[in-house]
């Protein structure tokens, strides 16, 4: 979808057109979900955050003026939401880790959320191993480093935009991405 089409879609959204919002979901939903998933480590929480994001989007879309930077704007809201969630969890005494609360109330990892290995086709098993490995590695990074790395990976935001979004100096944003990616490589190489 080119910028002109996105602009038209946004105009329709600003008039309250639900079909236009669904098209935005088709366009950005996957990326946003992946971002939330990597930051929270939980598919369930990622889906909740995606839902909340679209509700917020409906409230805020009238304030947006299209200047070919919709994705940046959208990911800024997403980043703020992910941060708010982490803050709430910290306030409630949870650690902002990649664990989630299972149905029985006990904390479980993403690995435990998936079915047993013998029930999965080989491709899914490989995907599960990859997801686990990356999430486990990401869990070892500080929350802000993880957020910045994922923001850059999924949103294509520039370092300048990331620095503005996270309210940190440009050099700090760059250093955190550099250090974080190096750390990730080191962790994943060891596994």
């Amino acid at each position, binding site marked *: 979808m080119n910028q002109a089409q996105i602009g038209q879609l946004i105009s329709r959204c600003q008039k*309250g057109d*639900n079909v236009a*919002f*669904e098209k935005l*979901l088709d366009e950005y*939903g*996957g*990326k946003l*979900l*992946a971002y939330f*998933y*990597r930051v929270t480590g939980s*598919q369930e929480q*990622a*889906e909740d955050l*995606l*839902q909340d994001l*679209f*509700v917020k989007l*409906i*409230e805020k879309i009238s304030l947006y003026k299209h200047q070919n930077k919709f994705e940046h704007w959208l990911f800024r809201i997403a980043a703020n939401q992910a941060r708010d969630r982490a803050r709430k969890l910290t306030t409630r005494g949870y650690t902002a880790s990649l664990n989630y609360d299972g149905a029985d109330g006990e904390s479980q990892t993403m690995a435990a959320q998936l079915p047993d290995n013998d029930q999965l086709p080989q491709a899914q098993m490989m*995907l599960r191993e*990859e*997801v686990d*490995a*990356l999430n486990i590695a990401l869990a070892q990074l500080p929350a802000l480093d993880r957020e910045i*790395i994922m923001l850059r*990976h*999924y949103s*294509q935001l*520039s*370092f*300048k935009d990331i620095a503005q979004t996270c309210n940190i100096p*440009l*050099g700090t944003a*760059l250093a955190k*991405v*550099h250090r*974080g*990616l*190096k750390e*990730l*490589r080191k962790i*994943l190489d060891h596994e």
Partner: protein
Amino acid sequence: MNNKAKRELRETIASLQISDDQAKQMVDDITAGDALLNKFSSPELTTKAKQNVTDAINKQLIKQKNSIAPVAILIRIAALFLIGTMVINYVYKPQDKQTAIVNEVALTNGLQAEIELITFESAIRASEETTDDYFDEISVNGILSLWEDKNWDIELL
């Protein structure tokens, strides 16, 4: 990482005060890290999750429309009130300036002399030598003589 992103990365690193070797190392590390992240698949938006978001969108849009409706009605009532006030003002033209009425009445009735008399009274009042009694006398006399000169009906006084 596409070419634009690579250029942006190089420019950002160049803006920092670090040596060329350090900058090159940084670019290489970040590029390698990006390549590593690209190897991992991302979870997809399931039909159920998409349906949940769509339901939330529809629910929120209905909620927003319902919350906007009373405000829109209030705005319309205020607009109608404003238009009504303007129309009434335009049709009835209330005269609230007494001076304008005096002048208008005086000119309509040809009483230019009355205006002159008021001016005369003001001049007398401004004089330091003038007492109230003198002024009253001059004023009454002036009016009476004016009335007689003009041959107006004395009962009008």
